[in-house]
């Protein structure tokens, strides 16, 4: 049993809105949303934020899922790792692009572009010490990605550090995130 009791049928407006939005986006209400249900205000703001992250953006959703997976690995947080692997696959990533994320294999893998590898470097550095991201890495990142994309990537990495940490703290598991089909845009 998780630390807090999951709420199955919320009665307050904010939580009901969050559950409806989650249902529409994921096809069901994920366990993390139910765990936040006892605090309707945060249930709503966090659910809406995660929905925004798990969709096509300035960066393709397919690549965003690889960034999420690398972030989970770098942080040692596996609350929804399996679900994100499935999602990465459904969005068109090969088994090699998913598997080669492990440890340092991505560094020498042919499955990624230099632009993508620079993002994985950013993930690892943010996980270890965000104060030590070098100017040189930022220069490389800016040569591959525009400002809006880099803001999105920095937000995405830190969002999944946040969500993973919160879910691990509360003892939530979401082995399935999407029960409806997803497709790369």
């Amino acid at each position, binding site marked *: 049993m998780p630390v807090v009791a999951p709420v199955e049928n919320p009665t307050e407006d904010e939580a009901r809105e969050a559950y409806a939005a989650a249902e529409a986006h994921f096809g069901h209400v994920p366990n993390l949303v139910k765990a*936040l249900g006892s605090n309707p205000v*945060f249930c709503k703001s966090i659910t809406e934020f995660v929905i925004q992250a798990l969709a096509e953006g300035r960066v393709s959703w397919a690549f965003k899922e690889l960034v999420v997976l690398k972030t989970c690995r770098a942080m040692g947080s596996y609350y929804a790792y399996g679900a994100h692997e499935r999602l990465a696959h459904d969005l068109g990533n090969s088994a090699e692009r998913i598997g080669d994320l492990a440890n340092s294999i991505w560094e020498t893998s042919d499955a990624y572009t230099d632009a993508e590898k620079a993002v994985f470097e950013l993930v690892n550095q943010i996980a270890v010490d965000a104060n030590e991201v070098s100017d040189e890495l930022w220069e490389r990142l800016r040569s591959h990605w525009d400002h*809006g994309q880099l803001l999105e990537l920095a937000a995405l990495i830190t*969002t999944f550090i946040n969500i993973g*940490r919160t879910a691990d*703290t*509360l003892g939530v598991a979401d082995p399935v995130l999407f029960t409806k089909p997803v497709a790369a845009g």
Partner: protein
Amino acid sequence: MAQLPYIEPEDADPVTKQVYDDAEARFGMVLNIFKISGNAPEIAEKMWQIYFDILREGPMLDWYTKELLILKSTKMGDCLYCVTQHEVVALREGVTVEKQRDIVGAIYRQSPHYTDAERAILDLTAHVMIDPEEIPADVWARVKEHYSDGQIVEIAVTIGAYLQVSKFGDALGVKLEEVWYGHQPVLFVEEPPESPGTKHLLDEFMAQTPVGG
């Protein structure tokens, strides 16, 4: 300078402008961390709502308690930007300098300035920051003695959100605004930062002259 441009209010699109207006209403100014998020307005809008929900009384925890969680988590994350600002905000919310100083390390456990309830959630914060897989059962028992499920959600979310914003701002190289120059740091004087990057930023900050004397 930061690693991406700050989008100033006069250059902001309507979505960003609304976020800036909300931030200004709450904090009296548009901080650099908001301005950098103007590079992707649709993300800023959703992201900052969580922080607007944290930095106020309620919904289930008082702002004072949330400032303790923020100081503890951002100090452990070596975030000069967050710690400096929240030392000021915490003081405004009634957390005295003496009490702030005792939040570092394990001093709060013996400090007369802390209640048992506060000690329990600061122990929780420390475990969450170090390794959420190793939170001892007795810590949870003490937290649950004092806080409801909804409050525990708010505690976990506050720690997670400040882990996020610390790493977000630090990775992007967001700098403290001039308005903070001259602030006498409390937590990092009590216990210096571990990160070489934060040490450098602290030295730089301490060498700044307060604006307007």
